[in-house]
């Protein structure tokens, strides 16, 4: 247990190191200059710009810049935004809530509808409903999220006027849960679509796979009712691959949030990331990158732990 855990942590550290180097290189080698915004200010001289560049550490060699950034991060200093000089961690945490609410709602929606559709299809294999669910899932999976975002906005906001097209609540109005929910529905649904399709396909295959196993025949030979067989024998076994999917879906949901937040001007981490890229706000961009990478690897550790709980074969075999 501890050995496995230590090696997991080691692998997590390596992953994070690779992510940080790659991210850092890509950011700094991409065209663009964090000082471009200041360069256009009236009265800004080249000398002043140079001093700023020096003060921000941008004139140092790239490896040195990386080491400085890493050293600071390891002491808990995430740096400050180039734009408004706020501490990076404060900015990220300020946007985290909105993303978690959006992604969490989407995840719940996706799991419930997707798993339900998958179960339905698996228990009625070959039926018309089963085929329909399969085709619908494939269609959902092959259309990009932003397209659904734009279509939903044009349909439900512009055409029908049922739901707001963006933002987290009505600007200027006092906060109300109903208003918040209204703003949440469209982006959460759009973000959930592809994930729900994945859940449906995956659940169907996992359950169909379990249904074909010999021990299901044993359960039937025991005289158990179909309901008992489903709840005790099928679901317990199908749960294992579904836990894996939950782990895999976590980063996917985060990257989906990036697109969705942008389309719906949702003030979460995803939009913050795109903004930081636009302004070459390296500290914020790197901060978000590292933050998400930690979340994703932590998610996979949690998944593994859950898997161990759910599958007796992975628990330490008692002698």
């Amino acid at each position, binding site marked *: 247990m501890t050995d496995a855990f230590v090696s997991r942590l080691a692998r997590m550290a390596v992953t994070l190191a690779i992510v940080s180097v790659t991210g850092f290189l890509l950011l700094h080698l991409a065209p663009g200059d964090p000082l471009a915004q200041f360069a256009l200010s009236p009265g800004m001289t080249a000398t002043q710009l140079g001093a700023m560049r020096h003060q921000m550490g941008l004139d140092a060699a790239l490896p040195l810049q990386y080491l400085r950034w890493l050293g600071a991060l390891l002491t808990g200093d995430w740096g400050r935004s180039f734009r408004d000089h706020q501490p990076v961690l404060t900015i990220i945490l300020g946007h985290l809530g909105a993303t978690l609410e959006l992604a969490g709602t989407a995840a719940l929606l996706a799991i419930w509808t997707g798993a339900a559709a998958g179960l339905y299809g698996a228990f009625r294999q070959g039926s018309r409903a089963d085929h329909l669910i399969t085709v619908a899932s494939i269609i959902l999976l092959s259309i990009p999220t932003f397209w659904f975002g734009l279509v939903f906005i044009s349909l439900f906001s512009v055409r029908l006027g049922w739901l707001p097209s963006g933002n987290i609540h009505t600007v200027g109005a006092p906060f109300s849960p109903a208003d918040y929910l209204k703003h949440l529905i469209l982006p959460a649904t759009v973000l959930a679509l592809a994930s729900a399709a994945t859940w449906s396909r995956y659940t169907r295959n996992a359950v169909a796979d379990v249904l074909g196993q010999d021990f299901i*025949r044993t359960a039937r030979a025991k005289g158990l009712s179909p309901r008992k*067989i489903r709840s005790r024998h099928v679901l317990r076994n199908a749960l294992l691959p579904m836990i894996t999917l939950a782990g895999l879906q976590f980063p996917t949901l985060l990257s989906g949030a990036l697109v969705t937040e942008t389309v719906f001007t949702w003030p979460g981490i995803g939009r913050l990331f795109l903004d930081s890229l636009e302004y070459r706000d390296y500290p914020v961009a790197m901060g978000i990158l590292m933050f998400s990478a930690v979340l994703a690897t932590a998610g996979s550790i949690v998944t593994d732990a859950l898997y161990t709980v759910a599958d007796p074969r992975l628990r330490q075999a008692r002698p």
Partner: protein
Amino acid sequence: MTKSPTGHTAFPGAVPGAAPEAVPGPASAPLLSVRKLAVTFTQSSGPDIPAVEGASFDVRPGETIALVGESSSGKSVTAMALMGLLSSGSGSGAGPVITGQALFRTSDENTVDLLSLPEPALRAIRGRDISMVFQDPMTSLNPVLTIGEQISEVLMTHDGLSRRQTRAPVISLLTRVGLRNPEDLISRYPFQLSGGMRQRVMIAIALACRPHLLIADEPTTALDVTVQARILTLLRQLQAETGMAIIFITHNIGVVAQIADRVVVMYSGQIVESAPVRDALDTPLMPYSRVLFRTVPTYEAVLARRRHLPTIPGHVPDPRHRPQGCTFHPRCTHFVHGPCDTFRLSPEHATPDHEVRCARWREIARD
């Protein structure tokens, strides 16, 4: 430890757990009476597959029937049809077309036709009056449930016990199938057990509700030779204790001699010979069974050698394109044009309890 073909001392009482009664004579009413069982798998593309055709046989209380025949001759399909396990049971997939009759005497003394019984009524019989042990103990147990859970759910389903009440009977079942440390075993998972232990657990599950009929579909085929022998001994011992009847599907002729009262030989979906074990092994009449049993001609010799089925030149015909007349004729050394390849044959009685499906059995018997 030779068991005489009729050497049963026990007979299942009408009430489970009642004191064993005296040995019934051969005329005792059958526990199960299968008549003209036919199973046809229909396919969306391609011709139908008649997996079993016109199978008729009886199983008397306490009797052991050995069902033998080459692979894909229809043995498992016969067993599964009797258990009602060929359709998926969950509403999807129609399953094969099953015709015929299988009259079974339930533990509450009703006679029912297993083939036409609605699923809920069949469920009450499965695992209680008729149990089944399958070939592969590695895959037949649920990997994520404990041994205790998998045995106790039968008792909870059929005997209405609560989880707690099943503990004592589960432990006693595990002891009866020869497993040590049953208190410890109940919280174990299948992957922690050897193949032989798992098959003992499967047998414990099958015996939990004191069935009157056990169907064992090649229960030892997947096990090592030494383990095979022990499982077989266990089954015979349990049969002596409970008086249950057994349909034992096997490839192993030695096993047939050890365990069977009657032998039913299947070939290409049909029962081709059915006789008491001594007659079947000593004087088989149908050329296919003769090849199976003749190479080692006597009952004692078979018993001593524990032979597997000999291989016969040629192969079992594709069930979709069975030969005209006798389906064995392309492989038969006694084949003659006319009688053998014109009409589908019906079983005939050579003696009152020896049936054979062959156009030339009289001449063959004279040899």
